[in-house]
């Protein structure tokens, strides 16, 4: 019996080792359709098959810390740098960026269109009595959103369940909730452009430096996780950061709009 289990396990792991890696990823890169577009090209160029597990940035990092992934592709630079500093990541590279936007009902009860900076925008949302739908899931977007409330000196948790609604779900699910409740939502631009259930919601605030959204790629450290497919993860990282990978990322468009801007270092 033990022999049988070992055989089965070997058959599976041999299959997994060959030329396949698991990427622990943020949801926006999947929901925006980037992987559907990018991964076939990557497979053709490098022969590596990439299996994407798309969860929030917080969960992706935790999964990678348990060695359940070969590569981390998320968007929360401080958390990624801590991941490397703690020895879980080999190194981190910038990959691409886009920006966050605040969407809300077209009627715009908080008059975000008139806000001159993001701090003012957050304060206006709070003062207007309008609802705000938050990810509430420790994702990259959630971390960014909390930093914005902090900068605006607003204790959003005090209004939790009243005007501040923490969905504890992914970006898309939170947008579904927010749109249905005519609430404001902080979202990455890529997910919003591709999102198909906008109803009467539109982008009401954008283009502020504080809303910059950097994506990074981090191979999991083989010293910490001996099972990782270090070579394949390295090949994929190199390809993503190469001229070919970078121009492929920059060429991806939805409805004539680019969703991600390459800036690998």
């Amino acid at each position: 019996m033990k022999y049988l289990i070992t055989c089965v396990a070997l058959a599976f792991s041999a299959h997994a080792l060959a030329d396949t890696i698991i990427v622990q990823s943020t949801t926006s890169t999947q929901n925006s359709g980037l992987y559907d577009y990018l991964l076939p090209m990557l497979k053709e160029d490098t022969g590596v098959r990439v299996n994407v597990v798309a969860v929030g940035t917080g969960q992706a990092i935790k999964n990678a810390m348990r060695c359940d992934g070969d590569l981390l592709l998320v968007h929360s630079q401080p958390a990624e740098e801590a991941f490397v500093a703690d020895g879980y990541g080999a190194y981190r590279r910038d990959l691409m960026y886009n920006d966050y936007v605040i969407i809300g009902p077209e009627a715009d009860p908080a008059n975000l269109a008139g806000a001159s900076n993001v701090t003012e925008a957050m304060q206006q949302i709070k003062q207007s009595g309008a609802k705000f739908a938050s990810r509430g899931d420790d994702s990259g977007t959630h971390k960014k959103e909390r930093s914005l409330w902090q900068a605006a000196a607003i204790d959003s948790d005090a209004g939790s369940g009243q005007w501040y609604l923490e969905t504890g779900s992914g970006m898309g699910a939170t947008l579904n909730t927010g749109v249905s409740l005519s609430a404001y939502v902080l979202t990455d631009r890529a997910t919003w452009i591709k999102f198909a259930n906008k109803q009467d919601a539109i982008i009401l605030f954008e283009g502020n430096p504080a809303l910059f959204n950097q994506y990074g790629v981090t191979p999991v450290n083989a010293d910490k996780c001996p099972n990782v497919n270090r070579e394949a993860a390295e090949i994929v990282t190199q390809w993503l950061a190469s001229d070919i990978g970078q121009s492929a990322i920059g060429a991806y468009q939805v409805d004539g709009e680019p969703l991600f801007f390459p800036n690998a270092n």
Partner: protein
Amino acid sequence: MDALSEAFRLIITLDEDLFEILWLSIRVSLSALTIAAVIGLPLGTYLAITRFPGRKFCILLLNVLMGMPPVVVGLMVYLLLSRAGPLGWMGLLYSPTAMIIAQAVLITPIIAALSNQVIESLHQEYSDTFYSMGVTGGRAVAAYLVDARYALTTCILAGFGRAIAEVGAVIIVGGNIDHLTRVMTTAIALETSKGNLTLALSLGAVLLALSLLVNALVIGVREYAQKRQYA
């Protein structure tokens, strides 16, 4: 209505992705069902026909486990199969095998508890006969299972229904990886999060149609067999 016509279109155009996902759903849930039936049916029967201290507690436990949330089962199997977990060396996380294990854990108590009910009522009828004939132990379990096979199909269908419909366990241990571990329910969750509500609903309709097909098949076979038996 849009969802229904979209579901219809996906089916008649033999949409390749759809059938891949559908086939994985069937494969995973039927495999889990087979494991669960092989364990659950004898277990439920054994608990119905034997008497030992703690038996009532075992049955209570099965009934409690019937209400186990799929997401909890998924989390437990994840912690077991994770590279940092005790079975991590097998490298099974994010594979269909992991999904089969999770669903088998989820539905074994359902099949065991329901079959326990079925056999228990049969046992009141049969116990004297079996006792006088000296049929005990494994032979008695087998005899009960054969005799109650028609009534037990409902238990099995209940298990299948739970397995094919759950999303909480498979999304954690499978990871909803495209072309590898994406099944109907996780695809529905993904399309919902993309805001493609019509597509998500149409996938739901396809899943329901599959369930209908399986149920009709099983019940049809049962009716046919019963008729032949008494003809």
